[in-house]
């Protein structure tokens, strides 16, 4: 790897996601240059950075949404579970192993039950009892079960924003992903719900690796084991969260951003 700070790297753990010299561009416009980092088992990897720094583009490259984004060009390597994602013959299988949560909550215009059971059903699970199990388990893990268990038939897209965001998390968990990617999940969610979801993520860390893109610096501080700072398509710094937030940054821009001096 390059000379970036890699303090706090848990070398004894398995790598789930390995990004190497990744560059992304749209037409002639570059969105991300030479990003390299790894995400390990059972860790929360935080990504902070102001708008336009290429965070969402990175997530799209990981689960191959570049295939459906016109003009998006990806160079370099993304390895998921040791395999280059561009060489996965079946991108649908790849996406099933990576849960995604979007900035604005997307409750599909289906029942709450179908929102969670849709993906497993499409992947071939047909036994009602099995689907019931998945729905209850995922909604419980997303801290939504108690609120909706009596109205699983009502539309998921008409829940409140905070509920929809938890529904999205439940849906993202419905296929037992190995990686969960959250893109600024709290942007349209009230502080109380944000805290509840943060608690959920702390629990989930036991079973799944998490990439947490966040617009709230303190959220990264609260949750992430390691944090990367992105700025205008450049990965400025990657380090143990505790170190970065204790002022041990190797780049003054990171310190400035963390302390709120720009961005």
């Amino acid at each position, binding site marked *: 790897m390059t000379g970036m700070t890699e303090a706090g790297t848990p070398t004894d753990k398995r790598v789930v996601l390995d990004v190497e010299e990744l560059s992304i561009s749209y037409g002639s416009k570059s969105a991300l240059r030479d990003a390299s980092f790894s995400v390990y088992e059972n860790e929360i990897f935080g990504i902070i950075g102001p708008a336009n720094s290429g965070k969402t583009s990175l997530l799209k490259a990981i689960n191959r949404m570049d295939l459906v984004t016109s003009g998006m060009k990806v160079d370099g390597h993304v390895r998921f579970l040791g395999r280059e994602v561009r060489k996965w013959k079946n991108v649908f299988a790849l*996406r099933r192993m990576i849960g995604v949560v979007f900035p604005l909550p997307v409750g599909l215009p289906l029942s709450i039950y179908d929102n969670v059971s849709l993906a497993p059903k*499409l992947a071939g699970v047909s036994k009602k009892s099995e689907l019931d199990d998945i729905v209850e388990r995922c909604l419980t893990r997303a801290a939504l079960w108690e609120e909706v268990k009596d109205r699983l038939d009502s539309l998921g897209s008409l829940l409140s924003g905070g509920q929809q965001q938890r529904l999205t998390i439940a849906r993202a968990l419905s296929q037992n992903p190995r990686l969960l990617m959250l893109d600024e999940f709290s942007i349209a969610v009230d502080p109380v719900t944000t805290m509840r979801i943060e608690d959920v993520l702390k629990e989930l860390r036991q079973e799944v690796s998490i990439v947490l893109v966040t617009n709230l610096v303190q959220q990264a501080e609260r949750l992430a084991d390691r944090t990367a700072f992105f700025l205008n398509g450049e990965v400025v710094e990657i380090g143990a969260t505790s170190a970065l937030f204790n002022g041990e940054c190797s780049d003054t821009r990171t310190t400035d951003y963390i302390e709120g001096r720009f961005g």
Partner: protein
Amino acid sequence: MFEATELNIRNDRIQERFRYLFLAMAVVLIVPVLVILSLLVIKGGPVLSWSFLTEFPKNGMTEGGIYPALLGTIFLVLVALLFSVPLGVAAAIYLSEYAKDNWLTRVINLAIINLAGVPSIVHALFGVGAFVIFFGFGTSILSASLTLAIMTLPVVIVATREALQSVPHAFREACWSLGATKWQTIRKVVLPNAVSGILTGVILEVSRTAGETAPIMFTGAVFFVPFLPESVFDQTMALSLHLYTLSTQVTDVPENLPYGVALLLILIVLAMNALSIGFRTYLRNKKKW
């Protein structure tokens, strides 16, 4: 400072005048509709009766009902739908969900716009050349309906595409990121939420198809047949053509008779339009996101 100047006052007066001018123009719109409708109701109203709807014409069309023409129109429209709906919906799905912005897509879009602009008599000639002669369907319901189908295809495609586009893109991305294929996404999320919009378009298409005369008069609809069609290869009578012949070809027709047919035709079209508007309002009130 707060006083109106000479100029303000003049501008104000001018603007008032234009307001009334435009209002007058808008009101003029209502006049022909009202005149046509009241004329039809007054002159044609007395003709409409149950027997008018259910009996064959008699005495060289000068008496009796319009049963075969009514049935023929329904038959023509249904067979046309059979072709235009699957074809139009499939084309719209391709254009909205699969097509990339390349030359092929642009050519297809251009074709749709042009198809919509072709005069119906030209469609009629195309129908004669293609379906009656080349495919050898003869002058038949099949030929006439195919001609109607091609003519109304743009309506179905445009309505369907709009209905599909009104389903937010975020739903598709959410589905894809779950590992759903494009087709699974269309089937489970996009189509179910577009189906009512598509139906609205189809109803509008019906109302347009029912009134057309030119495309069917050379391809399958005839002036008079003494029996009902038994298959799509038979010829048939149709309301629009019946009205045309009654008004121009037959002598000694009682004055009210053509008005009755016209009123019936208008009622069918209005009913379809009302249905489509009602449907749209119903949808707007039934929010799903």
